[in-house]
C-alpha cells in the first residue's frame, strides 16, 4: 500500500474516534436533542420584519460612491485614456487608471489574471478601464461619461473550439488553453467491443447568471491605523482578504474583511466581492475616504461571473441488459475572459476538473476516458454557480442514460438500478465508495413516492384536442462535500461564559442557506446547552479562524466537525470540573439541556452554568478551538485516478411535465426529489435547499440563458433574463434519506448545491418522454422544444 493511502487511513481512524457520535445518541434521553430538529432560522425574525440590514441599507454618510467604467469592446488594445475632464468635475474625488493600483494589478480566486483596472488591453465587455469615486452616485455617473478611451479593436474569440485553433487570437499571453485534463480507466477498445449498443451524443449548455436578488455591494473603509476594512455580502471573506492585501501591496494583517448579511449567493458572491473589494479598496486607498460600490442589476449581469457553458460529447456503450461497459467523454469548457475558479488546484480543486470527475455520472463503468479542455474566450467569465461544473455534466450523463435506455428498450429506472453506485462501487476515478452511499435508497423511495411504475404506463395525450402530452422523467445525481484541494480546513472557536452562554466564531457565511442556524445547532448539541444559549459571531477575518470559503457544500460537514472538536475541548473542562463537584467519574457524566448528569443516577446533576462559572473562577479552559480537514484528496494528473473527494451526497429526482405539441410550451406539473444527506441537522432547512435547488434546476432546463451577440449580453435585466416564478415551479415534494456519513457531524454531508443538478435532466427527460423530441442544447424554451418535436416527427416518417 502506498504511503498516501496509509495517511488517509490514519486520518479516517482518527476522525472516526473523534466524531463517532453514536455512543452519545444511545445515552439515556435526559433532554431534547438540538440536532435533527427543524429549529427556526436564527435570522427569521429580523428578515420577516424587514429589520435585517443588507449592505444597501447601511448608512452612507461620509462615503464616496465608486463607479466602474467598463470596456466598450470584447477584445481590444487600449490606445489611450484621457481622464482630465472627469477629474475636473466638481465632486469627483478620484479617477483611477491602471497605474494607480498600488500593488499587484490583478485579482482572482485562483490565478490573479483579472486586472483591477485594465492597462493595455480588455478581454470582455465587463472589464474595468477606469474607476471613479465621487461625492454622489450621480456625479460618479457623470464622471464616467467624461472619460475618453480610445481602443484598437482585436479580433475576438467566442467559441472554445475556435479558441484552441493555432491561429486563434491570443486572449492571454500564455495562450487560450487554460487547462487540459484527462481521466483514463480500463481499456476503451475492449470496453466498446463488449457493447451491444453504442450511442454518441453532444449536449450543450449556455452561460447562466446567478440572479441572486440582492445586488452586489462593497464598502472599503480606510482606518486610522492603516488597516483597510472591507465589508460586503460575500461567500469567501478570506479569499477577498488575500486579494485585497496583494492589490494594496500590504501584509495580510493590514486588511480586515467582514461579511454582512447576504441576499443570495449561489457561488456568485465568491468572485464578485473579490472584484468589488479590490476596486473599492484601491479607491479608498487613494482618496483616504470610505468608498462604497453598489452595482445596479445591469452591471451585475455585465461584470460578474457566470456558470460555465460547455459543449459535451459522449460516446457510451452498454450490453443488451443495460450494463454499462464504456464511456468516452470530451468537454469543451468555456472559461470566458478570466480564470476565476476554472483552473486546477491540485489535486482535484477547480470547477473544470470537478466537471471531468463527475462526467460519467453516479455509475459503475469499467472503462472510462474523459478529455476536458478549459478555454479562454472573450465572453464573461465562468465562476462558481451552485454545482461548480457538475450541473453541466448532469445534463449530459442523465440524458444519455435515458437515450440509452430507450435504445435498449429498458425502463429508465431499471438502467439506473443496474449501474448506479452502491457501497464498494468504484467510480470512474477508481475511488471505492466505502460508506454512506444512499443512491439506491433515494431511487427506491422516490420511485414509490412518485408512483413511477403506474405513471410510466400512463403517459400520452391529456386533452381531447390531442395537443398536450404528459411525460415523466428521472434524474440521478451525486455531488461531493468539500473542494478537493489540500487546503480545505475549517477552524472554529467556541467561547463559553460563566453564565453558560456561548459565542461561536466561524468564517462560514450565511447567504440564505441556513448555516447561521445549523452551525449553532451543532455547537449547542455538542456542549449540551440550548440553541438560544449560542450566539454566532458574524464572520470577520480579524476575529474568526480561517475557514475557507462557503462553497462546495462543505459548511455543515467540515465546519460542523471543527465546531464539535472545539466544543469538546471546553466540554472536557466542564466535565472534569463537574466530576470534581459531583464526585462522579467523568466517563459517567453527560451534558445535556443545560445540565450535567450522572448517567447512572440522573437525579445527581449540576447546572451547566454553575460548572462553567466554577471553571472560570479556577482558570480552567472555557475557550476551544477546533480544526478539521477532510481526508487528503488524491488525483493522478496523468490518469485522473484517485480519491478526489471524501464523501458524496446522492439523490433521485422525478418530474412530470405536460408538453404542448403544437407550441413546445412545457409545464412542470409534479415533482418529487429524494436525497441521501447522511443526517439532516435541520430537516426544514434541508427541504428548503431541495425546493430552491429544484427551482434553479428548472430554470436551467427551461428558460435561463445569458444571450450573447458578438460578445455583448443581450439580456441584462430581470425582464429579459428569465428566472422561474411562482407559476413555473410546481409543488415540490422533498424526501430526506439518511445514510450515515461516518466522517460527518452526526453523520451529515453536504446538501447546498446538489439539488439543482438532477432537476435539469429530470425535466429534460420528462419532456422527451412526453413529446418524443429531445432538446440537447439548453434551454428547452418553447421554440427549442418545438423544433425537437419537428425533428422527432421527421425521424418517424
Amino acid at each position, binding site marked *: 500500500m502506498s504511503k498516501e493511502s496509509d495517511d488517509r487511513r490514519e486520518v479516517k481512524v482518527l476522525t472516526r474516534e473523534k466524531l463517532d457520535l453514536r455512543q452519545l445518541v444511545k445515552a439515556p434521553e435526559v433532554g431534547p436533542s438540538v440536532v435533527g430538529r427543524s429549529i427556526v432560522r436564527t435570522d427569521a425574525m429580523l428578515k420577516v420584519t424587514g429589520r435585517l440590514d443588507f449592505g444597501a441599507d447601511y448608512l452612507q454618510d461620509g462615503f464616496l460612491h465608486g463607479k466602474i467604467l467598463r470596456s466598450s469592446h470584447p477584445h481590444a488594445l487600449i490606445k489611450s485614456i484621457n481622464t482630465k475632464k472627469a477629474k475636473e468635475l466638481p465632486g469627483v474625488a478620484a479617477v483611477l487608471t491602471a497605474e494607480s493600483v498600488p500593488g499587484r494589478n490583478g485579482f482572482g480566486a485562483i490565478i490573479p489574471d483579472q486586472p483591477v483596472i485594465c492597462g493595455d488591453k480588455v478581454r470582455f465587455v465587463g472589464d474595468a478601464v477606469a474607476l471613479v469615486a465621487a461625492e454622489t452616485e450621480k456625479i460618479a455617473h457623470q464622471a464616467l461619461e467624461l472619460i475618453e478611451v480610445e481602443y484598437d479593436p482585436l479580433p475576438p474569440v467566442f467559441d472554445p473550439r475556435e479558441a484552441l485553433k493555432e491561429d486563434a487570437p491570443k486572449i492571454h499571453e500564455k495562450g487560450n488553453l487554460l487547462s487540459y485534463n484527462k481521466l483514463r480507466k480500463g481499456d476503451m477498445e475492449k470496453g466498446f467491443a463488449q457493447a451491444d449498443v453504442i450511442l454518441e451524443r453532444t449536449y450543450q449548455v449556455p452561460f447562466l447568471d446567478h440572479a441572486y436578488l440582492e445586488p452586489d455591494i462593497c464598502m472599503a473603509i480606510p482606518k486610522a491605523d492603516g488597516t483597510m476594512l472591507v465589508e460586503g455580502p460575500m461567500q469567501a471573506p478570506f479569499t477577498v482578504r488575500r486579494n485585497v492585501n496583494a492589490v494594496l501591496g500590504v501584509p495580510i494583517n493590514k486588511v480586515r474583511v467582514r461579511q454582512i448579511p447576504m441576499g443570495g449567493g449561489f457561488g456568485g458572491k465568491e468572485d464578485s466581492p473579490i472584484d468589488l473589494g479590490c476596486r473599492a479598496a484601491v479607491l479608498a486607498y487613494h482618496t483616504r475616504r470610505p468608498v462604497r460600490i453598489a452595482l445596479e442589476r*445591469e452591471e451585475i449581469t455585465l461584470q460578474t461571473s457566470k456558470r460555465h457553458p460547455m459543449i459535451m460529447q459522449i460516446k457510451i456503450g452498454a450490453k443488451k441488459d443495460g450494463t454499462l461497459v464504456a464511456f468516452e467523454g470530451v468537454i469543451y469548457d468555456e472559461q470566458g475572459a478570466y480564470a476565476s475558479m476554472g483552473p486546477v488546484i491540485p489535486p482535484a480543486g477547480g470547477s473544470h476538473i470537478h466537471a471531468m470527475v463527475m462526467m460519467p455520472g453516479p455509475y459503475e463503468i469499467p472503462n472510462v476516458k474523459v478529455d476536458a479542455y478549459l478555454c479562454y474566450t472573450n465572453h464573461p467569465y465562468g465562476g462558481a454557480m451552485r454545482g461548480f461544473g457538475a450541473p453541466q455534466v448532469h445534463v449530459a450523463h442523465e440524458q444519455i442514460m435515458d437515450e440509452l435506455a430507450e435504445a435498449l428498450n429498458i425502463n429508465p429506472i431499471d438502467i439506473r438500478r443496474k449501474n448506479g453506485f452502491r457501497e464498494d462501487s468504484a467510480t470512474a476515478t477508481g475511488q471505492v465508495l466505502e460508506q454512506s452511499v444512499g443512491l439506491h435508497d433515494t431511487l427506491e423511495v422516490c420511485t414509490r413516492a412518485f408512483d413511477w411504475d403506474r405513471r410510466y404506463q400512463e403517459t400520452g395525450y391529456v386533452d381531447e384536442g390531442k395537443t398536450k402530452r404528459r411525460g415523466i422523467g428521472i434524474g440521478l445525481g451525486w455531488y461531493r462535500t468539500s473542494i478537493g484541494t489540500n487546503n480545505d480546513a475549517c477552524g472554529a472557536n467556541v467561547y463559553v461564559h460563566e453564565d453558560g452562554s456561548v459565542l461561536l466564531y466561524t468564517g462560514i457565511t450565511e447567504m440564505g442557506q441556513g448555516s447561521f442556524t445549523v452551525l449553532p445547532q451543532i455547537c449547542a448539541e455538542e456542549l449540551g446547552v440550548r440553541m438560544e444559549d449560542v450566539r454566532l459571531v458574524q464572520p470577520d477575518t480579524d476575529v474568526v479562524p480561517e475557514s475557507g470559503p462557503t462553497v462546495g457544500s462543505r459548511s455543515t460537514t467540515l465546519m460542523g466537525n471543527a465546531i464539535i472538536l472545539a466544543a469538546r475541548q471546553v466540554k472536557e473542562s466542564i466535565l472534569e470540573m463537574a466530576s470534581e463537584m459531583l464526585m462522579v467519574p467523568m466517563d459517567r457524566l453527560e451534558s445535556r439541556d443545560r445540565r450535567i448528569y450522572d448517567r447512572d443516577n440522573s437525579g445527581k446533576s449540576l447546572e451547566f452554568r454553575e460548572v462553567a462559572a466554577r471553571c472560570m473562577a479556577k482558570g480552567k479552559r472555557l475557550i476551544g478551538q477546533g480544526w478539521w480537514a477532510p481526508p487528503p484528496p488524491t488525483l493522478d494528473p496523468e490518469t485522473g485516478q484517485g480519491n478526489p473527494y471524501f464523501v458524496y451526497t446522492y439523490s433521485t429526482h422525478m418530474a412530470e411535465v405536460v408538453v404542448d405539441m403544437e407550441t413546445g410550451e412545457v409545464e412542470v406539473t409534479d415533482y418529487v426529489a429524494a436525497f441521501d444527506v447522511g443526517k439532516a441537522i435541520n430537516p426544514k432547512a434541508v427541504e428548503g435547499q431541495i425546493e430552491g435547488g429544484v427551482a434553479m434546476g428548472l430554470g436551467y432546463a427551461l428558460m435561463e440563458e445569458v444571450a450573447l451577440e458578438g460578445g455583448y449580453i443581450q439580456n441584462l435585466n430581470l425582464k429579459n433574463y428569465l428566472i422561474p416564478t411562482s407559476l413555473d415551479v410546481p409543488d415540490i415534494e422533498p424526501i430526506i434519506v439518511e445514510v450515515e456519513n461516518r466522517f460527518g457531524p452526526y453523520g451529515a454531508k453536504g446538501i447546498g448545491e446538489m439539488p439543482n443538478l438532477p432537476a435539469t435532466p429530470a425535466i429534460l427527460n420528462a419532456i422527451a418522454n412526453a413529446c418524443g423530441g429531445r432538446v440537447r442544447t439548453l434551454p428547452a424554451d418553447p421554440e427549442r422544444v418545438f423544433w425537437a418535436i419537428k425533428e422527432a416527427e421527421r425521424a418517424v416518417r
Partner: protein
Amino acid sequence: MKPSAFEYFTASTVAEAISLLERYEDEAKIIAGGQSLVPMMNFRVAQPEVLIDINGIKELDYIRQEDDEIVIGALTRERDLELSPLVQEKCPILAEAISLIGHASIRTRGTIGGSLVHADPAAEIPLTIYGLDAKMKVVGPSGERTLEPEEFFLSYLTTSLEPLEILVEVRIPVLPQKTGWSFVELTRRRGDFYIVAVASILFMEKGGVCKEARICLGGVGPTSIRAEEAEEILAGQVITDELIEKAGQKAAEAADPESDYHASAEYRRDMTRVFVQRGLAEARNRAKGG
C-alpha cells in the same frame, strides 16, 4: 440609477394639463401610472425635463356605459378594468387581455391611457383595441379629435398624438351578446410578456353565421396587425374547423415577424398560425355559448 432632474407639475383638470403642455412643449412628458415611464427614466432611456402628473385628474378615472359604448377614462387603472363587472360583461375580451399584463402590482398602478400612448407592440391593450372599433378621444389646444386604432398607432412606441395633445378617453362598442372572442398568447415564461398574441372577435348573426371576424396579431410586426385576409375567409360563413385551419394559415402569411433571442421569425410565424387557430376555436365556442 436615479432619473435625471426634471420639473414636476400636477394637473387636476385636462385644461390644466394642456396649458402646461403648451408652456413646455417638447420638454414635457405626461405621467399617469408611470409603469413604463419610470423604469425608462430610472435608466435614463427617457429624460424629460418637465413631467406633468395627471393622476390628480379625477375626471379621467371612470368606466361607464353610454348607449352602446363602454366609455373609459384614460386614467382608469388596468386592475380596475380587469375587475370591473361592466367590462367583464360587456367587453370581456378587454378584461381577459388586461389580466395577462405583467403582474398585479403593475396593473394596479398602470392605466389604460398609459398603455395605449406607450404603444408597445408587445402590449395587451393596444392589441385588443385594434379589434374593437375603439375610438380614442384626444384633446389639444385646438379642441378634440377622435382617432381609430389604425390612425392612432403609427409604429413601434409611436402614436399620432400631437405634442400638445393628451388622450382622455377610450370608447369601445359593447360587444353584442353571443359575440365570440378570445385573447390567447404565447410566452417564454408563464405570465410574462408575449412572443405572439392573438385577439379574436367573431360578430355573429342568426343561424350561427359569422357576420364579421376580427383577428389581431401581436408580436409579429412593429405594431399590432389585423389579419384581414384571414378575417375575410370567415365573414359570412358558419365557422368550421376547416375554415379555422385556413384562416390560421392566412393569418400566418400576414405576420411580419423578426427574429430576436427570444424567438426566431419562423417560429413566430408558425405560432401565429397555431394561436389564431386556437383563438378562433375558443371564440367560436364562446359564440355558441359554450
